[in-house]
């Protein structure tokens, strides 16, 4: 991650953090704790079946009840946090890893490079998001990594377009001209001059992408094209609970609520980041 230039750090510290960022951050912190320590916190293994305790409503032993195989819902939720975060962060990482260099190249080099990259991106965009996922996952057995990469690829165009737009603006600044006049090498200009000044909008967009990736990943798992049983991905848990929603609604509601809370948490963080970084955004736009 890029460290913001030192001059801006004190200003950001002095301002009070937006409430949304604090709330979202705390909520997200809880989910990260669940993802890191879930297996230790969980009262039962996520795949331990108990035929005698099938679909028991929430009680003192099973705080969130059990599913149709007698598996503890709370334990499965805690194990699932890791999968959801992996999907959200992994996919966003892939989209940054591919999208940012493409955007930098297109924005800075311009001309034929720009043209080639942007036409390629138009092509990826011409397929509706979920279909791209279906296409990439349709013929091989999916797992959490493949799904994360597929979702990441879907978001490459957005990252690349954004990076390109910011790069175009930053590349006009005088310090970039100065670096070129000094005869700095291309990679130095891109990595040390342009990228540190192009980060803020990219970070905000990346935070938003995490929520979209979590939702899309859950939807793909729900459709059977993501994480496979017996893993306890939240989307998959909802799909598996579907036939029993009349008799055991808690099995579907619990992962759904946690999924929504995760999305709300990341959304709050994204909006909070936008608020914090906005003054700099305007500076960049000059």
């Amino acid at each position, binding site marked *: 991650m890029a460290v913001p230039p030192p001059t801006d750090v004190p200003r950001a510290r002095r301002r009070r953090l937006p409430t949304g960022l604090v709330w979202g951050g705390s909520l997200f912190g809880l989910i990260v704790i669940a993802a890191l320590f879930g297996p230790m916190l969980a009262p039962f293994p996520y795949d331990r079946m108990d035929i005698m305790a099938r679909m028991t409503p929430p009680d003192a032993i099973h705080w969130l009840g059990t599913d149709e195989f007698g598996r503890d819902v709370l334990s499965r939720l805690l194990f699932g946090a890791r999968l959801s975060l992996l999907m959200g962060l992994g996919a966003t990482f892939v989209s940054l890893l591919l999208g940012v260099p493409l955007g930098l190249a297109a924005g800075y080099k311009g001309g034929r490079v720009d043209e080639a990259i942007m036409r390629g991106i138009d092509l990826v965009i011409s397929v*509706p998001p*979920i*279909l791209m996922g279906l*296409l990439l996952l349709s013929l091989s057995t999916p797992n959490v990594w493949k799904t994360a990469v597929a979702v990441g690829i879907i978001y490459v165009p957005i990252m690349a377009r954004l990076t390109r737009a910011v790069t175009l603006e930053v590349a006009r600044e005088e310090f970039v001209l100065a670096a070129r006049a000094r005869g700095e090498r291309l990679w130095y200009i891109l990595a040390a001059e342009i990228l540190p000044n192009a980060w803020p909008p990219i970070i905000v967009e990346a935070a938003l992408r995490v929520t979209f990736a979590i939702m899309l990943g*859950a939807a793909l798992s729900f459709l059977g094209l993501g994480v496979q049983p017996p893993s306890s991905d939240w989307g998959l848990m909802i799909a598996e609970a579907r036939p029993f*929603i009349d008799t055991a609604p808690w099995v579907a509601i619990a992962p*759904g609520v946690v999924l929504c809370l995760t*999305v709300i948490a990341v959304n709050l963080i994204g909006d909070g980041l936008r608020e914090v970084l906005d003054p700099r955004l305007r500076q960049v736009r000059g």
Partner: protein
Amino acid sequence: MIAYTLRRLATVIAILAVMSVAIFSITQVLPGDVAQMIVGQFATDEQVRAVRGRLHLDDPVHVQYLRWAGGLLHGDLGTSMMMDRPLGPMIREAIARSAVLAGLSLALVAAIGIWLGVYSGVRRGTRADRLISLGSYFFISVPEFFWAILAVMLFTGYLGWLPATGYASLDEGFWNWARHIILPVATLVSGLVAHVSRLTRSSMIETMQAQYIRAARAKGLPESVVIRRHALRNALVPTITVLAIDVGLLMGGIVVVETVFSYPGLGRLLIFAIEQKDLPLIQAGILVVTAVYALANLAADLMYAFLNPRIRYGSAAAH
């Protein structure tokens, strides 16, 4: 305008041509033997060979592609492997049913979303505005498939008003048809309305600060006329772009919603094709959806250019 339309139409055709190659190669070149994957790992060699023969998998790849693409140009989408029926009529029926869902949802999304956005935009900071903002924040954060399940719990399980799954054609009576379509449409609308209303709100707020709005007020026009005649028309331009983006999201939503409600549309058909590894159906289905999506985007672009003359005379490459 005509030159612009032609240019955009050419782009669409080019995209579809390239996409047909991409779809074909992704589905053909995936790791492993396609025929083996279709019949399963316990199949005999004869079975594998039979499938290879039926799909012409032993021909060189470019011959296979040209046969497929040639068929497409003649309107022949191929034959389903699992059901052994021509795909054309099957996909056409499915599209018609999905189009009903999509059309109704999009119309409702536009109407409700724009109304909510304008309503809260002109009342910025009031309690109503904050309530709508909070509501849309909440709605954006709930995935469609979870809405669908909550809706089924409430309206089917608890209240028993509406059927959880299935489809009835209009011939079976209007109410029968409507009963099956209410929950899918409501689910689709719930996610997208927030999108449109948030954007309309911010663009309305921006527009209301423009000089010509002040001029309109200064000459004594009633506020409702200022909003309807002067502000709305300009505020809606970005909304149209977002509606085009929403068509993409809507298509994703349709796949999910049709699966949850067992609604026999194109999305359900595609998921079925993938579950059954029905290769021709996967290829044709994804290409058809891409085509529909490209045309929807084209329509949005043209409308945008129509409303905003600056686009028409600018370079098409920038868009």
